[in-house]
């Protein structure tokens, strides 16, 4: 795998390969010594143009457990905020000798620009770009759904026949986009639930159903309900009237979570707004996979860095792993 830029173009075989290698990685993490020598001598740069401590430390833990050297470049508050371009930053990392660049950027498409520009030869991992994609989040979500469903028998399985409901600000969510593509590729049925203002104007080509009523979606007995974080500034742009109204109509409150069928799980990519999109009853219930998602995130990112950096590189988009 040369880069991991999105899940839109990730084929089923590659996705399953990542999930299965993540299973192997997860197994090693229950040992007393968690560190593997696999990426010794490789340099991974975490290039973060946006604050995201959670994602950054997850990638950092993944790289370190594979024995890679990690450089954290918080581009916010550095020369970048003084006007240095993405090109100059990339060329600097190239000169330092980065083998992989994990990039978080507020502009959609910045990782693809970095990967295709010729400015840098390192493999590029998209750690979230604008409102476009966040592929490792979707992979860890799929891993979590599969693990809860199939346990030790997860390897090699896809998500065929499972029903996932994604609730919230789909318009601005890179997590939702990456999940829609990946879940569909893995055979799951996807329903999006949101106020009409927070769905892109034309999603007719998405492999997902859109409904505006959360209770209608929950009546379909979903296997997983994924709540998206709502950003409070959306209120000021007239996407919805008040927090209370949002919470009443699209929040996963105690009553809704209690009505879910046995075995359905509640997911959230974090950080949560308790009391807004998710109630504490939901977040703290045995259905909640919030902390498993964090743990699984490290395994997924280990698998991705392993596929990017161990062994020979192949073509642009993965293909043969």
């Amino acid at each position: 795998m040369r880069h991991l830029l999105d899940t839109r173009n990730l084929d089923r075989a590659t996705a399953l390969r990542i999930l299965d290698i993540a299973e192997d990685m997860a197994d090693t993490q229950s040992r007393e010594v968690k560190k593997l020598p696999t990426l010794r001598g490789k340099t991974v740069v975490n290039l973060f143009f946006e604050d995201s401590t959670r994602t950054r430390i997850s990638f950092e833990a993944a790289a370190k457990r594979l024995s890679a050297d990690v450089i954290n470049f918080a581009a916010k508050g550095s020369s970048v905020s003084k006007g240095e371009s993405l090109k100059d930053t990339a060329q600097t990392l190239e000169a330092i000798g980065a083998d992989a660049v994990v990039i978080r950027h507020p502009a959609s498409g910045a990782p693809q620009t970095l990967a295709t520009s010729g400015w840098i030869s390192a493999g590029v991992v998209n750690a979230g770009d604008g409102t476009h994609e966040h592929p490792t989040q979707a992979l860890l979500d799929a891993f979590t759904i599969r693990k809860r469903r199939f346990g030790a028998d997860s390897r090699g399985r896809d998500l065929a026949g499972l029903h996932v409901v994604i609730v919230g600000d789909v318009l601005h969510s890179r997590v939702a986009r990456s999940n829609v593509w990946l879940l569909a590729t893995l055979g799951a049925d996807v329903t999006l639930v949101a106020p009409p203002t927070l769905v892109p104007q034309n999603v007719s080509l998405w492999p997902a159903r859109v409904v505006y009523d959360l209770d209608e979606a929950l009546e379909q007995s979903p296997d997983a309900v994924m709540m998206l974080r709502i950003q409070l500034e959306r209120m000021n742009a007239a996407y919805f009237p008040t927090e209370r109204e949002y919470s009443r109509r699209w929040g996963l409150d105690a009553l809704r979570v209690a009505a879910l069928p046995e075995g359905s799980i509640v997911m959230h990519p974090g950080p949560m707004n308790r009391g807004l999109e998710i109630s504490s009853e939901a977040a703290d219930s045995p259905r909640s996979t919030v902390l498993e998602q964090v743990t699984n995130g490290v395994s997924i990112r280990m698998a991705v860095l392993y596929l990017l950096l161990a062994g020979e590189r192949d073509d642009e988009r993965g293909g043969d792993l």
Partner: protein
Amino acid sequence: MSETLVITGAQLIGAKSADIVVENGVISEIGTGLGRAGARVIDADGLVALPGLVDLHTHLREPGYEASETILTGTKAAAAGGFTAVFAMPNTSPVADTAGVVEQELALGEAAGYATVQPIGAVTLGQKGERLAELGAMATSRAKVRVFSDDGFCVFDPLIMRRALEYVKSFDGVIAQHAQDPRLTEGAQMNEGTVSAELGLAGWPAVAEESIIARDVLLAEHVGSRLHVCHLSTAGSVDIIRWAKKRGIAVTAEVTPHHLLLTDELVRGYDARFKVNPPLRRQEDVLAVREGLADGTIDIVATDHAPHPSENKACEWQAAANGMVGLESALRVVHQSMVQTGLLGWADIARVMSATPARIGRLSGHGAPLEVGSPAHITLYDPSVEGVFGESDLHGRSVNSPYLGRALPGRVEHTVHAGVVTVAGGAVVQELDA
């Protein structure tokens, strides 16, 4: 003044091939077997002879942004594309909102000599949309400004727009509107539709263009003024203009070559060469603007030539500047999208790329048919060849063309501006004889 030219065997519109003699900057004779002692002979066998092309929408960047383009380099690009006159948009620094700036641009164009530079004046001071610029002073200046535009910005305030439309009637002016509702396009990055939904780029909805055009044609009707709509880009806009013309409203409209050929699918690679305002639209819109141009709803093609330095394009999409260079490629793109598709013939090309833009802009001496007594603004185009468009085809200071690497038909072989050969054998003449 200029040398004597004998152009032999040119394919004139609506006629058999003929020889054209140019003396003292004017076409002096058309016929067969013509010659003049000591004249420069241009072999135009197989070439289509068009009246020199006129671009109603060019950004020449001077004064103020000479790193992107100058009046000299921009008019060289114009000549390379077969243009003999360009209307220069006022978003310079300082903004062309006074008689002084438009006269400076006119003088720089005259000094360069590659094409007639006709300045466009800003509608409002500093293009801020708040107070009218001194439109009358620009109109009576040596630059004789007749077209006014805040291009790049929409004249959004309906009262300012109404007053501007009314005011320019006293000197037969026209307001060229950049139709874009600023509230509906805050942060907009590309056409709003299936592709923007997938790419996570903020959408620029068609309705933000169409609602302003609808308002403006009604205003123009109410006050009895001329309105010109810049770079119309959506199927809905074509319908509104068609309706307005049927009602007898004095509206004209332009489409760019890129909106005749390219779609928002090209944004998928996040290559900022395809970032432009208004954005590339859907295939349905491309077909609708072609149809509108073919049936006369859309009056003209204008390039919206918008040079930018490489650092403003070699970056993440959101940080990139809007705009594409288009002068050098315009005729070839229109050839591909309109002539090769059978929608227009060469007589129509002369109308939509020369005669009508000159008439809308009230630019005398341009756009006239190639007849005895006409000023010698002539474009000789070879429609039989095809080539991959490359940086060597660009003659301005910037290379932000969406066509690099794309096969396009045709080639501008010779351009004659006021009797002076500016392009010879496909190459821009570096030292003009004038």
